[in-house]
Every structure is written in C-alpha cells, then in structure tokens.
C-alpha cells in the first residue's frame, strides 16, 4: 500500500502543474511588481567585532521593553496572560527565559522546565474552558512553543542522565509524564462539557506524542538503572522514589481530608471525591506490593512499580489542583451538562479509567 501511495503521490506531483502560459503570466506579474518597487537590497557583511547592534532599533526596542518590564506592572499583566493575550509573548519569550536563566542548578532548571510545560497546558485549558479560540497563527505559535518547551525538558532530563543524576532524572521524567497525562484528561473533559469548545486536536496530538517520547526516555533511564552493576544506584533510585511517593501521598491525603471537611465551593468539580479515596487505597496496595518486592530482592520490578505509583500520584495531584489553577467562569457551572443515564455531572473525572484510552 505504501508503494501505491508513493506512486500516487508522484502522479499527483506530475499532474498538478502550472501551464507555460500560467507560469509566464505570474512571472510577468511578479516582474511588474518588482519594477514598481525599486530594488535596493542593503545586505551587509558584518565584522565579528561589529558593535553597531547596540544602536539598532531592535536592540533599543528590546531595551525599552526590558525597562518597562522591570519598572512597571507589565510583568504582572504578562504573568497571567493567556496564549491569545497581547502580553503573552512577553511572558514566554522574556520573563520566563530570564527566570530560567536565574535558576541555579540543572535539577531545578529541569524541574522549572517541566513546570513551564504544565503552565503552558493550563493556559491552553483555560482558553478552551473560557470558550475562546486561538487564531491559526496563535495556535501554531502556541504548539511550537509547547513542543519546544517539552523538548527542552527532555534535554534537561538527558543532561541529568549524562551527569549520572539518575534518581533526579527519573523523578523529573515522572513529573513530566504526570503533567502530560493529567492535562490530556483535562482537555478531554472540557470537551465533554462543551463539545463546541476550541478544537484541541493539534495540542492533544503534541501531548500524545510527548507522552510516547517521555515513556521512551523513562524506559531508557529505568533500564540504565536496572543494568547498572552498581547495586547502590538501584537502591538510591528506589529510596528517592519512595521518598517522593511518601511526600506526595501525605500531601494528597491532607488535601483530601481538607476538601472532604469543607463545603464544596468549587465551580468545576473536576475530580470525584469517592474516586480519590479509592485511588489512594489502590496506591497504598501498590506500595505494599512494591515494598514486598524490595524485601524479596526483586528491586528492578519494585522500581518499575514505584515509578508507576509516582506518575499516578502526580496525575491525581495535577487534576486536583486544576480548580485552583483554572479560573472557572461562573456561567460554566450553571450550564453543566448531566449524564443522561445517571443524572450525575459529566465533569468529575473517573480516576478508575484514567488510563482507559491507553
């Protein structure tokens, strides 16, 4: 079939042609246009010691923007800017790179990059949730920016591997994976609520691809740890993962208890409370199983389990925090659709089926 496609594409290529008359006509039009406009290219070859850029308008403009940023409230406006806002470029192209530059070490920088990926996806979810759309240009620019930031997060992780900080690399990979999986689910849910919302196919496709590539990276790191002849490398990774899981689980349980004791004030109940309880119980069982594997000497299998637990926890955390991070329009609440069969809100995410589509 592939060969068939190739030959058919070739046929299209050969068939879709401009006739000589058409070529001549458009050539003539272009020449007319060129004659109307005087040709005056000003390309210059610059000396490597050229300092003129200090005085060029772009540099001056950038300087002015920098002055504005540091002396006025633009950063404040830019910080909450969404992809379809005027200040968005300032946030992504100026403010955030500066913050990254100021972040001291590789581990923190890579974590920051993961946080930026999460931020990008939350901004996009916010746009979709608001029922707004991105112009084609904004969408291209946004998906490019998102792909680039995911790529940079991957590069940071690879660098951590090169520097042999395997536990850190694994932890950051799990964080990234959780962020991607959670946002994928969130976008899907928003679309269930509002089928007319912005078409998210392009962003979802970036997320899906990134989940795949992050899984490959994660497998490579796990393999590196597993084939390491140094037993302490494996022990360190397990210890680091366990520590991370314990912290996450404690935080999640605290938050869960707090939410359960408070009246539900959330406008958008993204995560179903009962499902969180059952997911936590499930995770506790998995932890027990992983612990048993460690005791039984099956450390490699244990590490795989801990990784999975870490990702699941991260994903739940991201989902739980979605209400806090997404600013929900009041009108969304009133029009919330109900499941025809159960009468329940469609919004709560079924944690049991988080991986249902994988």
């Amino acid at each position, binding site marked *: 079939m592939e060969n068939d496609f190739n030959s058919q594409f070739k046929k299209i290529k050969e068939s*879709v042609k401009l006739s000589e008359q058409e070529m001549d006509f458009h050539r003539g039009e272009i020449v007319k246009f060129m004659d109307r406009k005087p040709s005056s*290219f000003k390309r210059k070859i610059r000396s490597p010691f050229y300092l003129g850029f200090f005085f060029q308008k772009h540099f001056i403009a950038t300087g002015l923007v920098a002055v504005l940023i540091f002396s006025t409230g633009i950063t404040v406006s830019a910080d909450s800017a969404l992809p379809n806002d005027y200040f968005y470029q300032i946030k992504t192209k100026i403010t955030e790179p500066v913050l990254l530059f100021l972040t001291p070490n590789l581990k923190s920088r890579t974590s920051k990059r993961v946080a930026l990926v999460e931020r990008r996806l939350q901004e996009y979810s916010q746009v979709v949730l608001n029922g707004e759309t991105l112009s084609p240009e904004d969408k291209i620019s946004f998906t490019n920016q998102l792909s680039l930031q995911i790529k940079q997060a991957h590069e940071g992780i690879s660098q951590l591997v090169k520097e042999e900080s395997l536990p850190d690399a694994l932890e950051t990979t799990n964080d990234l994976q959780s962020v991607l999986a959670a946002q994928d689910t969130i976008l899907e849910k928003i679309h269930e609520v509002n089928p007319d919302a912005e078409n998210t196919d392009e962003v979802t496709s970036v997320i899906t691809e990134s989940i795949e590539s992050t899984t490959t990276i994660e497998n490579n790191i796990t393999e590196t740890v597993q084939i390491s002849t140094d037993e302490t490398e494996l022990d360190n990774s397990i210890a680091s993962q366990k520590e991370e899981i314990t912290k996450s689980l404690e935080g999640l349980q605290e938050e869960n208890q707090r939410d359960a004791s408070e009246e539900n004030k959330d406008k958008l109940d993204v995560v179903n409370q009962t499902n969180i309880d059952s997911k936590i119980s499930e995770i506790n069982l998995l932890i027990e199983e992983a612990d048993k594997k460690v005791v039984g000497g099956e450390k490699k299998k244990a590490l795989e389990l801990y990784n999975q637990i870490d990702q699941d926890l991260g994903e739940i955390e991201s989902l739980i925090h979605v209400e806090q991070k997404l600013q929900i329009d009041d009108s969304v609440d009133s029009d919330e659709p109900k499941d025809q069969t159960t009468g329940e809100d469609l919004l709560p995410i079924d944690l049991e089926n988080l991986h249902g589509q994988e």
Partner: protein
Amino acid sequence: MKQGHNDKNKFIESYDLYAEAIFRYCLFKVFDRERAKELMQETFTKTWEYLEKGKEVENLRAFLYKVAHNLCVNEIIRPKSFSLDEMSEKVNFNPEDKNSRSPENETDISLLIEKMKMLQPQEKEILTMRYIDDLAVAEIAELLGMIPNSVSVKIRRAEESLRKLYK
C-alpha cells in the same frame, strides 16, 4: 538568498525553480486552483518586499514555504467538502499529461486527494511536504519548527491515517 540577491534576474530564476512547488503546496492547502495561483504569486511578491527591506534570507526555499504557509493559514478554512467531480475540477490535472488522463489514473488520484482532505490539517501538510514537494525530514522540521524525530513520527502516523481511510 545567500549571494547576488540584489539581482532581479536571480529572483526570477528562483521563481522558475520554485513556483510550481509553492503552487502545489498552496493548492493542497486551499484546494482551489485559482486561489492557489494567486497565493503563489503573493508568496513571491511578499518575499521580494522582505528582501527589499535589506533583510537576509539564508534558505530561500524554506523561506518561500514559510511565507506560503502563513498566507494559506490566513485563508478562510473551508468547512464544506467538495464532491469528487468538483475536486478534480478545482485541482484541474494537467490535460497535457497523457498518463494522468487515463480514467484509472484520474480515479486513483482523485480518490487520494479526497482521502487527503479528510486528514487532519497537519497530517495533510506533512504528507504534501514529504511526498509531493519532496522535502527532506530535516527541511520539514525546520519549516514547522519541530525536531526531525517528531516529523518522522508524524509522517508515519499520517501514512497510517491515510491507510485507514482506504480500508
């Protein structure tokens, strides 16, 4: 353009070299032969204007594709689908080409175009760039601001989607 681009003749030579490819690229974006010709022409005039401002273009081919891409994106996205006959009429295969005039060939090509139109915009774009415009993976990556690996994956997936549409 790296050298001698202060020469109109050089620019016209570039037109002779790339016009057809840019036209094809636009045609598979807007599916309207007349509009694709206009967009192709506009791509060259916009590029000329850009060069006139004294700005540098390292890779003219890639630059032309970028301009064409932006122009096509600005076009109204047409939700209506064309019938096969309309599609063939709009794409207007070269009547001089005897091979493509055989009914079998025309049906194959029309069918492929129809299927291509059903693909996601990016899948359609990436297949056009790879197989109709003969761009290398690295060139597509540069044009779309992606990494070459992602481009390869996208090509494979687009082929898969196309194959599914044939089933």
